[in-house]
């Protein structure tokens, strides 16, 4: 078992007839992902990549029994697409679109409250369960099936860590990108919880970075959860250039950019193993698993 996706996952792609989506849906099909239909308003009734295309998510779900949607819609319409999938009751929505306006994401989050939908993203590379399903745009060449769950805010850094984990002789149960935007769906904390409850996952790697407070929230959740599985974390950006700040409001809410040191301290005191640097995470995880077994 992986988290979020499995062999029973049947995927529709919103915006499948677009150029980038066509390219990536073909990759996902080749990977073995069960993509069952596309949704593009106005193109209902046609076929694309030898799959049926529907005008609406609701029609596509009724016709195909899909239980996941991959949103590949440009930023100006991405929120509407996520809201449509949520209202259609799709249990898992993954949005890879970059640059979705903030206010639109606030509307999406309001729609998600009390719904049965779990959103991953936006601005996420997606979810990959090696050997099972790929819902996203990530590199798959170095991924191997195994017992390490990886959750991160950044796509290219995740690929690098996946390669390290594979080199260390371990594989991945699932890799999840929660997305780099300030307002997004699934959080690092929720993902850690899912990995803790997953039978296949033996250890978790959490890849954070400066800004926001996702890592601090994850640290709180971990302290509360006291997971049995070892968790290794990296927080990138200890030496990032300083950026300009506007006004004081940031200091009164969680909106302010959390420093790497604060995040590292929060995670460390929650019992997380801190990787001093991005280059030795695979080895660190292998060591952590070895000592956890003894």
């Amino acid at each position: 078992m992986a988290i979020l996706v499995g062999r029973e996952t049947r995927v529709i792609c919103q915006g499948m007839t677009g150029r980038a989506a066509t390219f990536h849906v073909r990759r996902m099909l080749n990977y073995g992902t069960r993509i069952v239909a596309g949704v593009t308003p106005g193109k209902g009734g046609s076929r694309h990549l030898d799959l049926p295309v529907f005008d609406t998510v609701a029609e596509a779900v009724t016709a195909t029994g899909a239980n996941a949607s991959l949103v590949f819609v440009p930023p100006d319409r991405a929120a509407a697409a996520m809201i449509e999938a949520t209202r259609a009751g799709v249990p898992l929505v993954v949005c890879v679109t970059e640059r979705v306006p903030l206010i639109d994401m606030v509307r999406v989050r309001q729609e998600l409250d009390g719904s049965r939908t779990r959103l991953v993203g936006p601005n996420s590379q997606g979810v990959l369960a090696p050997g099972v399903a790929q819902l996203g745009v990530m590199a798959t060449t170095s991924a191997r099936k195994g017992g390490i769950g990886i959750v991160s805010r950044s796509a290219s850094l995740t690929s690098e860590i996946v390669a390290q984990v594979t080199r260390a002789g371990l594989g991945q149960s699932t890799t999840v990108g929660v997305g780099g935007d300030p307002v997004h769906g699934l959080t690092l904390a929720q993902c850690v919880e899912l990995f803790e409850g997953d039978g296949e996952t033996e250890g978790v790697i959490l890849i954070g970075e400066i800004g926001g407070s996702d890592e601090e929230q994850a640290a709180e959740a971990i302290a509360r959860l006291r997971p049995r599985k070892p968790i290794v974390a990296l927080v990138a950006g200890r030496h990032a250039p300083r950026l300009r700040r506007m006004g004081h409001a940031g200091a009164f809410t969680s909106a302010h950019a959390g420093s790497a040191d604060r995040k590292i301290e929060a995670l460390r005191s929650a019992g997380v193993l801190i990787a001093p640097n991005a280059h030795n995470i695979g080895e660190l995880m292998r060591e952590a698993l070895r000592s956890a077994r003894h």
Partner: protein
Amino acid sequence: MDLHEFQAKELLERFGVNIPGGRVVESAADAHRGAEGLGGQRFVVKAQIRAGDRADHGGIRFADSPRAAALEAGALLGRRIITPQTPESGVLVKWVYVEEAVADARLLYAAVVLDRVSGRPLALASAHGGSDIEDRAERDPAIVQSIPLTIRPDGANGDFAGLAARIGLDGAALASAAQLLRQLAAAFVALDASLIEVNPLALTAGGKLIALDAKLSIDDNALFRHADLRALRDYMERDENDPVELEAQQHQINYIRMAGDIGVLVNGAGLALATLDMVCDAGGRPANFMDIRTTATSLDIARGFKLILDNPAVRSILVNVHGGGMQPCDTIAEGIGIALRRCPAQHPGHVPIVISMAGNHAEFARTVLHNTGVPYIAGSTPWDAAQKAVAYAKREAPSWLSSLVARRA
């Protein structure tokens, strides 16, 4: 996009927010005329820089006559102002805002900001406005109160009167504060703001609320639906931003100059941050942050690489790429090849290049580098590459590579 005070006030006024009369000027003579035009006895002369804490760092002056206003404006224009919220070198003052002074007022604070945890906007208010509000709130967090907002098709809703009551207002002041907060919330949604802050917010003896200062940041991702603000951004960027960083932006690259001597090119922001950390941990100093976005073409990447080659401080270059689905390694290799082909052999930018490539099309990218004659040192992993780039930057003369390049040419 961060706006200047005078721009923020003009926009907020459209939502009903009261602002003092003011004129934005570029010269002392205009400041004189502007103050005369405003009338009144007392003026505030304010440096227009897009950062806070101006008052405590000489950016805000008071004047008792148009003549005095002109003198103060002349003193501010062309000066650099440094505050805890600016870069260390400060910000150049190109515009000054001359405003009517507001007398005998209590100073409050109001803001609307996005809360990342709840994914909602919050309205904030305090009865203790002024530039020291952050320090005071640190000692006593209760002085700043907040309420969550819900976005509706027609704006944003929240218990604005309740928030005004919680900071101790009552009667007419409570009603005006609730109205002001509602106006700020409406502006937040309609303008696609990521921050609105009115500090200080004057409460006059007559119970009127006037925004003495205003900070407004617009969500860049939403500029596609605000043609006017986009035009403003394009103008301000040309006028005020670092031309090198701006050129990078136009080529799908996030670039920030830093003080070191190792040029860094990475795809993806997270990997770029991690790469800076690796360079520093290996004992080196990065010359820049560079994140190649997935939408960049090889020609964009060539322009980005040229920015590194043209930086005279650079003594070695580290390329750390993990090819993903959107952007395979060979696109980046091609971009580097193009940049070097365009770069004359005698160019001082020919310094050792250390490259680590992994992920999609990494092997093919090495072939591209070979075929385009890019001389480079291979890093087996990003860490290995970072260590090598640091070692090369520390060497006295990187001339061995220049001669190699000259031979090839």
